[in-house]
């Protein structure tokens, strides 16, 4: 099987950041994403997911390494100071690299 190296960027943030993050993903050149509602606890306290607006969301996107670098840089500069948020990247291998 012929797999190709790619970056998986995972963002976990307050639900209110949903639209700005989606806009950022589009502009940075991500071709898609997966989003789900999650709950958890962190430096800004516990977020129980019983009201959509007060919940956390997790957004995952698989992108080219250069896109991932640009994404992480913008997240650090513009988003981390403003939103409850963590983000990390990991190495993954995909089929059909053109899809990403």
């Amino acid at each position, binding site marked *: 099987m012929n797999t190709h190296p790619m970056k998986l960027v995972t963002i976990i943030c307050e639900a209110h950041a949903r639209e*700005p993050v989606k806009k*950022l993903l589009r502009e940075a050149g991500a071709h898609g994403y997966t989003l789900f*509602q999650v709950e958890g606890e962190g430096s800004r306290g516990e977020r*129980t997911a*019983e*009201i959509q607006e*007060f*919940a956390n969301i997790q957004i995952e996107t698989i992108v080219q390494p250069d896109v991932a670098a640009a994404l992480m840089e913008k997240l650090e500069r*513009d988003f981390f100071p403003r939103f409850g948020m963590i983000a990390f990247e990991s190495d993954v291998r995909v089929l059909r690299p053109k899809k990403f």
Partner: protein
Amino acid sequence: MLDALHANLVSPAVLFFVLGLVAAIAKSDLKFPEPLYAGLTIYLLTAIGFKGGVAISQAGLGAVWLPGLAAMVLGALTPLWTYPVLKTVGRLPAVDAAAIAAHYGSVSAVTFIAATNYLTAINQPYENYASAFLAVMESPAILVGVVLGKMAMNRSGNFPEASLKTAMHEALFGRSIVLLVGALVVGGLCGERGMSKVEPFFVTPFQGVLALFLLEMGIVAGRRLGDLRKVGPFLLAFGIIVPVINGALGVWLGKLTALELGGATLMGVLSASASYIAAPAAIRVSLPDANPTLSLTSALAITFPFNITVGIPLYLAMARWMYA
């Protein structure tokens, strides 16, 4: 006044609210699943909107437009006086002052619904079309608050993803506005004949659904009580004094625009209430530099419980005094 307060405090809705507060303080594992919360919200907004629409079809737009316009203007103007107070007396950063001002100019649908429930319980008649005031008061203050915040932020850097346009979209097409305005229109088109078809679903179970919803809101507000330490004495006082002032203004404006005593009370309740769903959603994306703990804690953990328990009978007492 004491009788009115007592009648409110022993109603099922308020007692369930207190139960929710107690459950949250005791760190009980009681919680509602998100879809149930969303479902109850949809039910309450649709029912109140539909009822309001039917009432408009009976009273005619001629009776509604003047108090409706007054309500809208009152909501839009509220941030203009609270913003300088927050900035100068509270010594808050401009962007936080603008965010909090927006929350207090906008309204809480649940507070309004609890107030209609209370008036019904004590046999105080009110204009059913008052839900139209709820619909028009939610957005204007949010937009005014965002503009105030933007004006202050231009001097201290900006966030590219935040624009007035996103705030407008959130404020005008958020799910509560769409549901409420939509149900008002549907109710207005259906009239009394439509009401008779949906009454067993939208009217009869209403009080029970509200009680259940307030239980959940008690839990949600109770979880925020811990944040009270973070907001300081100024916002604690602000969260109680400002609703009382706004409540008096609302009742007075209701009287001025020829509402009955019950309708003026509701106008007071709307003016006194602070938004904790629609406003945070719009403010978070358009003024992300504002600290959400400040606005959300004062609206949800101070003003909302105050209005639900003491505020509503207080605004009724004000109305009785002004109409005497």
